[in-house]
């Protein structure tokens, strides 16, 4: 057999990138339908947080007036932001599993565009996160959350959440490629998200935090994202100060998302190209 008899020549076109990405995304979306449990548990956590904070902790949190119904309106955009952060975890384990099972080696030995494997995986993960955001919005409406701003602002809000979620899946992919096993990946994907979402305005106003923590919480991307959503959805923004992150939450949140994408997408693709089995020596 000679080279001319092989099925394909390498033609690195944009068309290939798109068709490769779609094929990989389809694989992961099929997987979601085969293991609906994973989607179920991705849904249950944010819904639980909504119920827990709306009805258990909410009463104890001081918004400076407005009562329980105002707190619920404050809470839901916060949970959106938290959920988007957890998008990291939706992909990390899957990436490490692929890497350890050898299927990633197969992808890497195929004449496909290197970005397509992660591109497809992150796209499927975005799809799952959008489903979660939809269910979460419905839950929010049920507990009394409303969109009180303009339609255009609301769309901008959802676009922000989707962009942020997509950026987070790339961070998750990058983490997953550096983890030795799916078990470690599961913890590593989540461990740093918890302090990040709690040292933010997701559940409580920053004004009630100790003064040393306030600047950190103000600039925390999660806070910016939650505040941007509250502004775009026309929900309460208590104790709004005139610091830069408070005044420019929307552009800053978009900026964070695009910055994370710009940093972690290339890093993840590079890690994908050089990844060895199990992240260790062969």
């Amino acid at each position, binding site marked *: 057999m000679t080279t001319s008899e092989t099925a*394909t020549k390498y033609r690195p076109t944009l068309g290939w990138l798109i068709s490769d990405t779609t*094929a990989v995304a389809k694989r992961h979306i099929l997987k979601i339908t085969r293991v609906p449990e994973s989607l179920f548990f991705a849904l249950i956590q944010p819904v639980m947080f909504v119920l827990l904070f709306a009805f258990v902790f909410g009463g104890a949190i001081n918004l400076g007036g407005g009562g329980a119904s105002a707190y619920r309106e404050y809470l839901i955009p916060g949970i959106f932001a938290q959920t988007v952060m957890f998008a990291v975890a939706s992909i990390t384990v899957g990436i490490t599993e692929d890497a350890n099972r050898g299927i990633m080696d*197969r992808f890497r*030995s*195929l004449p496909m565009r290197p970005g397509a494997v992660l591109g497809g995986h992150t796209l499927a993960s975005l799809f799952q996160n959008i489903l979660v955001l939809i269910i979460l919005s419905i839950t929010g409406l049920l507990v009394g959350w409303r969109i009180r701003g303009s339609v255009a602002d609301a769309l901008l809000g959802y676009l922000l959440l989707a962009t942020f979620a997509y950026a987070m899946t790339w961070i998750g992919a990058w983490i997953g490629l550096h983890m030795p096993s799916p078990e470690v990946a599961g913890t590593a994907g989540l461990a740093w998200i918890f302090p990040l979402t709690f040292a933010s305005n997701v559940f409580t106003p920053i004004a009630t935090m100790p003064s040393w923590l306030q600047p950190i919480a103000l600039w925390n991307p999660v806070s910016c994202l939650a505040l941007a959503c509250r502004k775009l959805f026309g929900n309460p923004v208590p104790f709004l100060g005139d610091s830069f992150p408070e005044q420019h939450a929307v552009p800053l949140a978009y900026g964070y998302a695009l910055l994370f994408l710009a940093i972690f997408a290339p890093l993840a693709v590079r890690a994908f190209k050089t990844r060895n089995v199990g992240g260790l*020596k062969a």
Partner: protein
Amino acid sequence: MTLAIEVSGLQKSFGEVQALRGIDFTVEQGTIVGLLGPNGSGKTTTVRILATLLKADAGIAKVAGIDVSSSPDQVRTMIGLTGQYAAVDEYLTGRENLQLFGQLFHLSKKQAAQRADELLTRFDLADAADRGIKGYSGGMRRRLDLAASLIGRPSVLFLDEPTTGLDPRSRLGMWEVIESLVAQGTTVLLTTQYLEEADQLASRSVVLDHGSVIAQGTSDELKSQVGGDRVEVVLEIPNQLAQAKAALSSIASGEININEDQHKVIIPTSGGSRSVVEAVRLLDEVQISIADIALRRPTLDDVFLSLTGRSAEDEKSEVKPKQRSRRGARA
């Protein structure tokens, strides 16, 4: 003859560990070459470099005349890889897996579907085509994995321990498939720890140890390095070993060895099966009774033992433990 694989001066280190210390070998088009060696000898590293998964530190590796480090994308259009793990998606069906890889090989949807059907039938997976891989047996997974590596009709196929962990029947099935591929002109580089597998399949073998090539040649060439045939006699009464050794000296072509534990006398010989008859007669004359007698040709295991000073079976992993047992059914 054209060369399908050329490797020269290949080096690779992982931190402190020198996995490859400058290896050289070639594979002619349309042949199977076995890459033998214990865990950590550098087999897998070599295959990973050739399959564009790993960059070498130094040296040249070419597949079908194309340099893997400067044109990995070109190389990828011509190779297939079957590794130690079944590299398929657990949650998809066999057919979906093959179609996915077909599409990633840039076959059209229709071509990918056709090729998937073709391969499913050929690998005896047609009945299980629409079942999830989770329910597949080990042998079926390996067959699907091999099928996936053939999607793009590769001219060079890398099989990294393709039968590790398979039961004997599945292994025989794999061997048949591999032989038929080579009959159709595919070049195969096969790594294995089962020396009988290399003996059975490979026209030539390259033996690696500690990242260096310590021997290469046809099975016969390798075996002749260890010596020729020998007669092995197991005695019924152990304390007659010395007596038996003396009695058999006339048929020996070299030094006779005694294995006390197994009550065995090992006589190198050049007389073929006549030596066995002669040995029986000689021992009968001195009234030594025989529990077992056989003419043995050296196996690649013997080659391995004499080249590395240890058997391929009891080697220790030098680099790292694999995620899964690589010994499998053999143990």
